[in-house]
């Protein structure tokens, strides 16, 4: 991995998540009606952190679920490597909730499109809002995040990596050179 820049370091990561937690609470006037849904794998970790911060601020249990959008991907038939299913785990009724969808990087918007379709199959939420750690641009669908950790303008041959302690041993946001492959 050829790192071009370390955009957010560990203390910055924590402060950024804390700001997102407050923004989510401000928009929804508290945590009463919201539920957090993370997109596996890294979105799940970030969703857990955000949920914990929101609970600590509000002193109220928060519903949290995880979404595996693999079955809803639009590139299933021409994807060369078959992805492993990790499973969706949303044990509450999404109907009437303000769902805060959480992912690490917002790029083409195709993952979010799949996630929206899957959530709608589970029920009829009042709203779905999107929170991401990094928005790197290059959207292919008309999708926009409600809560953004950091806007990072990129070229197509760059990639944004969000690292989390639970998987990678450290919290960071990196700008890296794309390894081989197509842009």
């Amino acid at each position: 991995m050829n790192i071009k820049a370390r955009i957010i370091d560990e203390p910055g990561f924590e402060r950024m998540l804390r700001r997102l937690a407050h923004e989510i609470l401000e928009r929804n006037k508290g945590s009463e009606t919201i539920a957090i849904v993370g997109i596996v794998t890294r979105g799940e970790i970030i969703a857990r952190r955000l949920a914990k911060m929101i609970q600590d601020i509000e002193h109220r249990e928060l519903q949290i679920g995880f979404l595996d959008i693999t079955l809803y991907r639009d590139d299933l038939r021409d994807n060369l490597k078959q992805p492993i299913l990790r499973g969706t785990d949303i044990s509450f009724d999404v109907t009437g909730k303000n769902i805060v969808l959480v992912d690490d990087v917002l790029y083409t918007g195709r993952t979010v499109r799949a996630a929206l379709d899957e959530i709608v199959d589970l029920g009829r939420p009042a709203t779905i809002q999107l929170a991401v750690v990094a928005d790197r641009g290059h959207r292919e669908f008309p999708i926009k995040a409600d809560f953004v950790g950091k806007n990072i303008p990129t070229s197509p041959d760059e990639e944004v990596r969000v690292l989390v302690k639970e998987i990678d041993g450290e919290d960071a946001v990196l700008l890296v050179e794309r390894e081989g492959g197509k842009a």
Partner: protein
Amino acid sequence: MPLSSRHLLGLDGIPSDDIKLILDTATSFREVLERPIKKVPSLQGKTVVNLFFENSTRTRISFELAERRLSADPVNMSADASSVRKGETLKDTARNIEMMKIDMVVMRHAAAGAAHYLSQVVRANVINAGDGAHEHPTQALLDMYTIREKLGTLQDVNICIVGDIAHSRVALSNIYGLRAMGAKVSVCGPRTLIPAEIDRLGVRVHYDLDEAMAGADVLNVLRIQLERQDRCFLPTLREYSQAYGVTPERLARAKRPIVVMHPGPINRGVEISADVADGEHSLILQQVLNGVAVRMSVLYLLGTAN
């Protein structure tokens, strides 16, 4: 990590990683089956032909539901309604279907090896839904899924298959699959229905059911095929039932927790008593539910691999 084969023809020689992948993936589909909208778009645009040369209601419906819940388009063809009656060969049937641009074929056929043959003459993915007395891999996979769900593992679990082992594709697929996953398998039935040298597949043979149950965690009870009665494998059904029928008294005598499975349809009072079939030890209805999830898993893994 995809499956190692483009087809699912049987469990003989299948890598245990493939079985594990199918069972793990089925867990995700079990969750889908609990949703208000029990359907995902994964196989949108794929056409699956269900080619049933032998009668089957349960397996065909289970496959068709699995296909629909993955958004594939199923087409059903059964033997009595088809050109097979008019003398068409399997190869010609297959070639004709192939020209209609289909992606997958699910086939049941009375001849052992029919699915294997089909996989050599068509480009579509082939799933064996039962070929003669050879294999019925999806039934064995759903049995294994059900055991794993109930007991947490297959490793070192003692499974006894009871009944007509000689004519059973369910028994054979279960033996191959369970052995690959590290389970301990035994078979039990009258001598006329146990094939010679079955022990070479690594299974223990019992002729006494109480003796077999003394070491079993799971009984997989096979259907006695009443239509085969005229060929004198059994003196009478009553005698079979007394020697090999699974009853509450037998389960109590075994002095260990035993769960009971059956691939269906059951003959109440013959191989299994009504009290056992409807009782707390029975996983029979759970098998039916898991069957759809396991078949979705197989269809998904074959249909989305390149």
